[in-house]
């Protein structure tokens, strides 16, 4: 609505060349055009595949290392200082280094997402494990739980709400960094579409790709929320 009024005002009041802010219908038209002709799906698939693989690896690594570091002091003493040194560096600042090390191919884009999503997932997992009520652990031990059983039946479910929060942060971050890494040396992807639109001054295409990215991020977040509701039903049972 606001967008439509704003772009209308630009045209009516001749504030600036309307080409800089095309109306929503023009952008929607551009998205539909790309959808019908087909290229939208290729770019969408490229971005989704990178996010899925990068986020999947980041989540697996973050949860696994987070559980280990939260549960075992020796692991924590090795991993945590390393994470604390790297974490304050904005991941995007390291993107050029990634390209130098791994090249501009798929591996560097996926690896970069993995790197960026690892941190929030790792940190919330460690927090989740370390904040477990020690009384629950004692109760489980006096019921006979030890070793693997204690881990899978008590520590994992107790840390799950925090792990899921980390996954939600990770999904958002994945969509955030994929766009920028697709600006550089990509031939497909929504980030590529935006950059391509900038090169050829196709403003509706730039905005259209941004809108599609927004929808994807929204859907990703919704998916994790759905998972959260299913897995932590015990917090707010009907």
């Amino acid at each position, binding site marked *: 609505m606001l967008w439509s009024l704003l772009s209308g005002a630009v045209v009516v009041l001749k504030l600036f060349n309307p080409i800089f802010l095309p109306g929503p219908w023009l952008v929607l038209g551009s998205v539909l055009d790309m959808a019908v002709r087909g290229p939208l799906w290729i770019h969408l698939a490229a971005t989704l595949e990178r996010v899925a693989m990068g986020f999947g690896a980041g989540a697996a690594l973050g949860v696994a290392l987070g559980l280990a570091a939260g549960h075992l002091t020796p692991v924590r003493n090795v991993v945590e200082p390393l994470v604390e040194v790297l974490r304050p560096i904005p991941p995007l600042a390291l993107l050029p280094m990634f390209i130098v090390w791994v090249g501009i191919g798929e591996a560097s884009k996926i690896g970069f997402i993995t790197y960026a999503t690892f941190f929030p997932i790792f940190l919330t997992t460690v927090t989740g494990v370390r904040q477990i009520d020690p009384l629950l652990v004692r109760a489980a031990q006096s019921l006979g739980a030890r070793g693997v059983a204690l881990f899978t*039946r008590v520590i994992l479910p107790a840390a799950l709400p925090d792990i899921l929060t980390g996954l939600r942060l990770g999904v958002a971050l994945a969509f955030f960094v994929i766009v920028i890494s697709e600006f550089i040396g990509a031939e497909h992807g929504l980030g590529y579409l935006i950059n391509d639109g900038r090169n050829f001054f196709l403003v509706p295409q730039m905005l259209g790709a941004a809108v599609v990215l927004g929808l994807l991020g929204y859907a990703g977040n919704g998916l994790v929320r759905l998972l959260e509701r299913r897995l932590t039903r015990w*917090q707010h*049972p009907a």
Partner: protein
Amino acid sequence: MMARGPKIQIQRVAKSFGAPGRAMPALEEIDLDVAEREFVCLLGPSGCGKSTLLNIVAGFLAPTTGTVLVDGRPVSGPAPERGVVFQEYALFPWLTVTGNVEFGPLLQSRPAAERRRTVDRYLDLVGLRAHADKFPVQLSGGMKQRVAIARALANNPSVILMDEPFGALDAQTREVLQDELSRIQRVEHKTILFVTHSIREAVYLADRVVVMTSVPGRIKQVFPIKLPEVRDRFAPEFTQHESDITRVLREEVAKVRA
């Protein structure tokens, strides 16, 4: 079962906290035997180390000196033969009432049919059959503690350790649960070590009441309670026991204040 020695033997157990050199003694030289099927209450002013002693018997804490034997074997850590009921319930919030009660039998890989029978039996015993599918957040404090008691019993321990289990409940609920525990003990005949700071509760439940001194905790006096199994809180013999213990305990509370 072989030798008929005491079920629990606490032998010269002492505990101090803090760094060696400036350690604060919490317990000093505790010697106490608990017979099989006996219900013993540890009573004392707050901070006297009665919960510390219970945690040592549970295996959560190691004594600084001395040993605890259960069935003649030294305690080296928590084990399913010694069930624990905590003041804060410590239910697993992600499991239903059934899931919590089933926790121990599931760890022992009992078959499903047997587990169901166990759960039904103990939920009936504590009167919670109708709430089997609820989660802990949906229960009142009294109901949570009933679940915790059922969970401990379902694991079939020979000893149950209870750390001020009714301390967080209101006065009415507290008496109802005391009645239930007394009834359950007449059915289950467990060996129970029960920490409380309520004299009434101790006299109502225990075969023996062990009064402890203020910090550092030692055993001040042991009161055998010679009352019938089903007790009347208003009987003259009951109040006689209460006042006897009150007199001894008051000296200790006065020391803390001084």
